[in-house]
């Protein structure tokens, strides 16, 4: 049996879900028998591969870059997993929604800075007016709520996916878990 190609993607989130992924510790070695990480912020791959079996996406869609990225991921992925509350529900990144991006940028780059007060407009991608969960942009196959979903949850879900077993997400995790 060939190994499943797994990618992990980091959009607007705190990387906590990726930390949780690493928290699988020695179980990562067991997983390595079943899966192969082909793209991730924690491996050295620059381009998203052409064919991926499972993509774990952390983070909400907050910028035009995120939107482009998630659409590309979807186009090359068989099973797309929304990993963690940001991807599932917007979570902390979406807390700016009631105020709008201008207020947030002003706070970060003008009010709280003493030198070179200016809102970046060239290097940093433009923000979307509203931060939204990824399923508002692309079809999501599995939702894993949790902030972050525990290492145990990730392990259970990944092994279930790799072995084709059904899994009851709600028995493992919840919003804010």
């Amino acid at each position: 049996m060939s190994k499943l190609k797994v990618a992990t993607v980091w959009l607007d989130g705190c990387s906590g879900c990726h930390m949780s992924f690493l928290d699988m510790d020695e179980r990562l070695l067991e997983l390595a028998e079943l899966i192969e990480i082909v793209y991730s912020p924690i491996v050295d791959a620059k381009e998203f591969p052409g064919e991926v079996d499972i993509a774990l996406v952390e983070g909400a869609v907050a910028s035009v870059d995120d939107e482009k990225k998630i659409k590309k991921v979807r186009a090359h992925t068989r099973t797309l997993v929304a990993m963690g509350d940001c991807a599932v529900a917007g979570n902390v990144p979406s807390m700016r929604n009631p105020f709008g991006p201008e207020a947030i940028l002003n706070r970060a780059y003008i009010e709280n800075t003493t030198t070179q007060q200016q809102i970046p407009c060239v290097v940093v991608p433009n923000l979307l007016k509203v931060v939204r969960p990824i399923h508002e942009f692309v079809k999501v196959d599995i939702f894993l709520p949790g902030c972050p979903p525990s290492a145990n949850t990730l392990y259970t879900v990944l092994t279930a996916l790799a072995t084709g077993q059904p899994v009851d997400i709600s028995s493992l995790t919840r919003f804010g878990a």
Partner: protein
Amino acid sequence: MTDAVEVKTLIIDDQEVSARRGQTILEVAREHDIHIPTLCHVEGLSNVGACRLCLVEIKGSNKLLPACVATVFEGMEVVTNSERLRRHRRTILELLFAERNHICSVCVSNGHCELQTLAQEQGLTHVRMPYRNPQLSVDASHDRFTADHNRCILCTRCVRVCAEIEGAHVWDVMGRGINSIVITDLHQDWGSSTCTRCGKCVQVCPTGALFEKSKIGTDNPKNPDFLPYLNLMREAR
């Protein structure tokens, strides 16, 4: 036979149970360890039938009845957990999550929230609707408590406990429809209101909307269990 002991026999989820006349379906179900999800109901306060999570099916009728207020009748057959009911319950919970800014991960009640627990229990893993992200205030004017309207689900437990148990009627609802909010007095700050500082509203609040300052739910979970006891003491007087 007097009214008080008149017995009704009915079936809840294929289980034959007996009940006293005038009992609600919810009361009878709980006596027999049959779980019906609730949110606006809390033992010891009046029922308003507002959250619609306790809706049950009655065989022979297409109408769904709120178990918290619908009373039993002889020969009634109740279904508390059909696919149709589960679908409605999930949709109602989704509506609540999308209505205001419920960010579980940063909430004082994370881990002790009835809304969060219900979502997990009902198998809700995501919300299909667009989040409304309203801009709502946080009233921290009270020296002991805070009201965060972003987390309020308008169950009106605070309104009822304040009026019915404490007898102060500080809380009430203002506005209509999607713009409704709970207010203290005539929309004064909580801190300068006629609040008696009893804290019952905080204890009955199912979410993190009302909380005690400088305490988080993990150390200090809410506990509305004092209500039946208070009512019992009152009846004894």
